[in-house]
């Protein structure tokens, strides 16, 4: 598994993917910097909670789009290389390529989350929002991240199995657009759809927000195993 993962990381050499992982948190934080520079007098009194609230506006959509794009880029590389037949005649378990790639996606998204966290902490301190609310920022970033696991697995599975990446990307964009509607809809049934977990997991929400990352991880793991098994049974 580790060998496969290292091999997968080597494939990123000379691609956009590592740069994107650095660029995206910059862009995300840049938005907040612009926001705070333009109307600091309005936002400053709201303190760290205000910054977290502004983050919350964009974070679910950013997460879903980021997952969609990254999953598509990582799998698209294999589709372009026509690599599946080669990968599946390697003397390794057929599920390994799938799980190795998913690990890479997961870890890359973690890096994205970590860099965004660092950026937001710096922003909060530079704009003097009071004593650092590290825990709140971390929760705001990590709860939705863990809640996004089912969506991550779904996007990843779609990208890995469908050669035409327009399909998973379209589904990802629609999912990102709908996530807020699903989360805030008056019909509680719609909250059960995995896209809704992500906005609902913000610590600014009322009630037991910690249940969403928990459900996300549990459902995500279940889906991951199921999709991995499906992938290993594919014929090429």
């Amino acid at each position, binding site marked *: 598994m580790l060998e496969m993962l290292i091999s997968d990381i*080597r*494939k990123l050499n000379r691609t956009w993917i590592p740069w994107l992982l650095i660029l995206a948190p910059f862009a995300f934080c840049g938005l907040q910097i612009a926001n705070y520079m333009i109307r600091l007098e309005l936002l400053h009194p709201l303190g760290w909670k205000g910054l977290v609230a502004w983050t919350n506006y964009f974070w679910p959509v950013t997460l879903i789009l980021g997952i969609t794009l990254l999953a598509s880029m990582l799998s698209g590389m294999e589709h372009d*290389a026509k690599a599946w*037949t080669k990968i*599946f005649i*390697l*003397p390794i378990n057929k599920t390994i390529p799938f799980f190795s790639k998913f690990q890479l996606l997961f870890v890359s998204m973690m890096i994205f989350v970590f860099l965004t966290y660092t950026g937001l902490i710096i922003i909060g301190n530079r704009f003097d929002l009071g004593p650092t609310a590290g825990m709140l920022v971390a929760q705001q970033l990590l709860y939705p991240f863990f809640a996004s696991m089912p969506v991550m697995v779904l996007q990843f599975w779609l990208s890995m199995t469908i050669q035409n990446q327009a399909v998973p990307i379209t589904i990802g964009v629609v999912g990102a657009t709908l996530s807020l509607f699903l989360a805030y809809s008056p019909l509680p049934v719609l909250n059960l759809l995995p896209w809704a977990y992500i906005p609902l997991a913000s610590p600014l929400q009322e009630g037991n927000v910690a249940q969403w990352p928990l459900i996300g991880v549990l459902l995500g793991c279940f889906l991951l195993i199921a999709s991995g098994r499906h992938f290993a049974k594919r*014929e090429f």
Partner: protein
Amino acid sequence: MSEPIIQTHQLTKQYGKRYSVKDLDLRVAKGDVYGFLGPNGAGKTTTIKMLLGLVQPTQGYVQIFGQDIQENRKQILRHVGALVESPTYYGHLSGYENLKLITQVLGLPKREIEEVLYIVGLSNDAGRLVRGYSLGMKQRLGIAAALLGNPKLLILDEPTNGLDPAGIREIRELIKRLAEEQGMTILISSHLLSEIEQTVTTVGIIFRGQLIFQKSLQALKQRAKGRLELEVSRPEEAKVHLQSFGWNPDLHGDRICFEVMSRKNVAQLIKTLVQGQFSVYGMNSIQPSLENIFIQLTERESC
């Protein structure tokens, strides 16, 4: 008979109602260079995919090194190198880096990369991005990748596809060398007999999913007969004239055809014609062509 490396039993693959491969009993002996021939869509690639465990057979089973591919997939594949359909390559990586990806997973030493690059003649281009490779070079990189791990069995699916004559020749030489120097058992598929005629020892011909011929190249060649073609004036009359002297000519258009005969007989034949006041404009000795047998075999099946 030497031990079989590949043996399939009633191998069948059905897609919907259509049989892609039906009751295939393939047998590749140790040390063979097996030419797996068939027109496009005959089921070559499907068969190869079943050999490698990429596709599950509907019926029948595959044994490689005497083991079932479905049961002992990992152990078998450790000793099999293969190039299926088009070669796999990451264009944004160099040739060396592409091979490194595989040695990384297989846990092979770096020197193996240099070895296989040398074998396929890509040592000088190893540092270039594969995006800039020619089709022939990509194909050779694919073969290099298949050679990693020093396999006992090499399976190449249409390795000459899309190559120019020089490229085809390179691949042919390469396969010959691998069989002779490394003693590998090689299965190579193609839709063109002429491409692999000079390389293979055994031939299997698949047509519409069924194996219609599986014997040595010699056996196949014996089926092919050459002929002698003569271009003469007044061919109809010439035929009658020759018949009266006991010859047995065939008339194809305005040419008179004979089965292959000894040089002495040829001289006698021409003498007969000239003495009968016929002008001989030209003579052609048509070599036995495997292409023709191939067409004969496949045409008979389609009737």
